[in-house]
């Protein structure tokens, strides 16, 4: 019988498999310095032992958290559109952005406010974007940085293109592309990483693994043990870092960006963290995950962790904290005021940046739209 033959063949091939030589092995490293209680697991890297750097990172994380809180309040009172908070994952954005140079190019996803803010984008510009005004993406800060990418992962091929331009022009610049765990399920991300690997491009891919793609948990996203290993298929190093440890994120980013700048090709960083909040203000995470799970992750959150370390090192006090809160709130209130008093553009300006030179056929539509007032 055919089945009998197939059975004996499979037994034979299993036996042979055991004798086959292993031609490749891979490993994925994990990086962590700060334990959840703020104690140190291993000697800090040089930059992270600089108190100024630590405090700058801490301040930026607190700013993002307070900014998020205000943005949600604005949304709840009808003064802002749908907004994506980064509660619980504030370590990733500044950790990555602080390792970049101004001339590098950031390609962020919609949850990377903190990286943009670090790079000089004004708070009111971020509010403008989420408030539904394109001028929010005509932002201050490095003018080559990309705007938030709202479709998931489709900015990864752009990053490869940007990095290709750097390589072609022999410029010592690096493209840094940020996306979430869900994006690693998309062909876009693999296609971009595969190309970047083949051409040894100066690009760093960063996956903020916050465990949840809206309501879909990581275990339904992939059966990979790590997302970092996805880089292996593209031919370069993937590293996993504790994404709630800003020092680990920063050190991994520095190493990867330096390697990329030195012509050693791309790197992939998986920052494992947790989204303590909803996906966006339109989401209700209590529909798909338990309060116990969220509560457990509150114990590992990045801001309290770094604060515990700083306080332990006598680098931070209660007074410092109060001053910082007041300073952040003042800055946020000023931005909100600026945002709320920014008049909408005239309606016909929706045509203004459609093409470099508006074709006459659409110029007529523009005139029609302007009809109600003096154009």
């Amino acid at each position: 019988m055919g089945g009998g033959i197939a059975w004996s063949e499979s037994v034979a091939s299993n036996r042979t498999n055991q004798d086959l030589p292993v031609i490749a092995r891979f490993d994925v490293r994990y990086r962590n310095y700060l334990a959840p209680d703020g104690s140190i697991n291993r000697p800090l890297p040089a930059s992270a032992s600089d108190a100024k750097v630590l405090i700058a990172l801490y301040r930026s994380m607190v700013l993002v958290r307070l900014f998020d809180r205000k943005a949600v309040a604005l949304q709840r009172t009808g003064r802002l559109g749908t907004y994506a908070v980064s509660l619980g994952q504030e370590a990733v954005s500044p950790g990555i952005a602080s390792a970049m140079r101004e001339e590098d190019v950031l390609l962020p996803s919609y949850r990377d406010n903190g990286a943009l803010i670090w790079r000089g984008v004004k708070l009111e510009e971020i509010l403008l974007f989420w408030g539904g005004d394109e001028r929010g993406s005509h932002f201050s800060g490095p003018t080559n940085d990309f705007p938030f990418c709202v479709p998931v992962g489709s900015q990864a091929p752009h990053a490869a293109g940007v990095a290709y331009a750097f390589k072609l022009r022999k410029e010592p610049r690096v493209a840094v592309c940020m996306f979430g765990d869900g994006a690693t399920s998309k062909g876009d991300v693999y296609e971009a990483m595969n190309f970047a690997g083949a051409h040894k491009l100066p690009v760093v891919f960063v996956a903020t693994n916050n465990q949840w793609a809206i309501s879909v948990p990581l275990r339904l996203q992939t059966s990979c043990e790590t997302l970092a290993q996805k880089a292996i298929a593209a031919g370069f190093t993937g590293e996993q870092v504790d994404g709630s440890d800003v020092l680990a994120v920063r050190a991994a980013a520095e190493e990867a960006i330096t390697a990329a700048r030195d012509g050693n090709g791309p790197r992939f960083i998986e920052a494992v963290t947790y989204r303590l909040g909803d996906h966006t203000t339109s989401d209700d995470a209590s529909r798909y995950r338990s309060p116990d799970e969220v509560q457990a992750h509150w114990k590992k959150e990045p801001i309290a962790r770094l604060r515990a370390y700083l306080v332990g090192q006598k680098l931070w006090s209660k007074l410092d904290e109060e001053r910082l809160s007041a300073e952040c709130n003042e800055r946020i209130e000023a931005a909100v005021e600026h945002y709320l008093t920014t008049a909408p553009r005239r309606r016909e300006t929706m045509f203004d940046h459609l093409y470099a030179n508006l074709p006459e056929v659409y110029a007529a539509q523009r005139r029609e739209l302007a009809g109600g007032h003096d154009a």
Partner: protein
Amino acid sequence: MPEVTLVEAVNLALGRAMEDDPSVVVLGEDVGINGGVFRATVGLQKRFGPERVLDTPLAELLISGLCVGMAAQGLRPVGEIQFMGFIYPCLDQLVNHASRMRNRTQGRLTCPMVLRTPHGAGIRAPEHHSESTEAMLAHIPGLRVVMPSSPESAYGLLLAAIRDPDPVVFLEPTRLYRAAKGEVEDNGEALPLDRAFVLRDGRDITMISWGAVLKETAAAADALSDEGISAEVIDLATLKPYDEDTVLRSVAKTGRCIIVHEAARTGGFGAEIAATVAECSLASLLAPVTRVTGYDTIIPMARLEQHYMPSVDRIVTAARKLCQFR
């Protein structure tokens, strides 16, 4: 002047653009040593090196996405998709990024890229190699969709597309790649985009078409002329944005309008033109606006495809019918 085929004209334009502007980069599957499956990029890698004439992995989404990133960084990428049937993975990039980069950043970042692809049926190609879905591209705000119909227009329009500061999808009529020959001087002169070309003056009927099927449209105009019907033939050339002015002026003169396209009828670009003519020129119409198009079927494979394509006969019959209206 040397006589070249349409695909050779494409090659000339690419070479000229790369020569003139070091930021022009050609990329796609097999565009390098192989010179492209239709030989559109032949010799370019030898002239300009593998960094500027780049063989990409087999990944169409990637090609279009790379173009967006390169263009935003000041390069002038010209991506090639081997057949229009494989352009669909690029739609996400075209709709969500290329066409709106300028708008969403209010001019801070722009996307001066060209995506080239062969267009249309009639070459007895395998399944998925004969698509003509230009209407879905022409629907995208912020994009330009351009289709040449001769070696001369392929050369001039491709140069214009590469020099244009906004994204252009450049659809090359596959059927004419080697069938169309013409004299092309490689002088670096571009033809205007957004402009229709009147290929033949006429007074009784306006026939509007683009790409390969202009061949049948022109043949129909010849046949009608033998019957004493004078047809004006317009090559639309740029579909997005299209030259309404030339179309409407012609229809005002002739009072009759036939639109000929190979793509399926429903929601095809002919519907757009018919609607414009109806909205703007109803008073000058002597007869209903008529479309001669491919049928609303999947483009059949080789054995039946000639029955799908608008034939000279179908165009002539439609034109005769319109001329019976007085």
